[in-house]
């Protein structure tokens, strides 16, 4: 938390926290000291909804390699899904 490197991305979706599912508002991605992961620095991702208080948070703390792997996997899954003409994302 000494680096203060933090990127915030607006989110639409849901996350499952300690009190169940909640609607997402932001993802905060920092490169800083983790709370739990066993390194001095980690890529920390907090899925949050500030309107519901600081406890509306789903957290992961990843090694840089894991974070890149996750980002690649998200992109690959998106590319496959968006290339499939039978899949359309819509609000029910």
């Amino acid at each position: 938390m000494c680096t203060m490197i933090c990127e915030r991305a607006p989110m639409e979706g849901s996350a499952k926290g300690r009190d169940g599912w909640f609607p997402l508002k932001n993802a905060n991605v920092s490169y800083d000291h983790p709370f739990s992961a066993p390194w001095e620095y980690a890529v920390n991702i907090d899925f949050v909804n500030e309107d519901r208080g600081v406890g509306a948070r789903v957290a992961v703390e990843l090694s840089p390699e894991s974070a890149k792997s996750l980002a690649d996997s998200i992109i690959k899954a998106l590319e496959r899904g968006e290339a499939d003409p039978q899949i359309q994302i819509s609000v029910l």
Partner: protein
Amino acid sequence: MYTTEQYEGMIAETITLKGHNGDEIHTYFARPQGPGPFPAVVVIHHLPGWDEIYRDFTRKLAHHGYLAISPDLYCRDAHGTPEDVASAIRADGGAPDDRVLGDVQAAADYVLSLPSSNGKVGVWGTCSGGRHAFLAGCKLTVFDAVIECWGGNVIMSQDQLTEKQPVSPNEYTNDLNAPILGLFGDLDQSPTKEQVDQHESELKAAGKDYEFHRYPEAGHGFFYYHAPIYHQASAVDGWEKMFDFLARKLN
């Protein structure tokens, strides 16, 4: 020095202080029982929050005979688990420097107002709290001793400055008005060895009373016994250096 035949007691509790701008903030206050007079230390928590390890640090100082007071620098922002609060603060760019200084001044004023005070007060913090401790030693005039443990971002580049942290603390080096003890791990990445070198050379050039100790096998946060970054030998020596420094400067 503690010996087994001594009576010992302390009171440790949350109190409410009027901090920066008169805002009411929660503060953890641990003090030895007895009339005193006792020296005091303002304990500035790290960016991961007003958490359990800072409760332990505050009580440890009281056990060693200090009025130890640790304000919740995030009290105005949110309440919840320390991790949840700190995560929100991290996303929001940290606590504003001027607000932190106001809260630290209020904590110092409070302990000095007590009949059990010996009239002397130090300031100590780790990580972002180390940065704040150095800043407090430069911008406030109330302190008789400053302890900076691995203060991250004491030296900031232009692109790191924000509305909340508008000035790199090392620019205030000439204003430091108390002796300073610095503890650093050579394996730390924030501050790096080069940044600690620069910090020390600036203190030397300004003619300040400083003592820096470097630990070659330690990284960041080597006092944090709850984390893998704990380094036992360095932490034990660091605590000894701290208590020796405080005894010399606050009595």
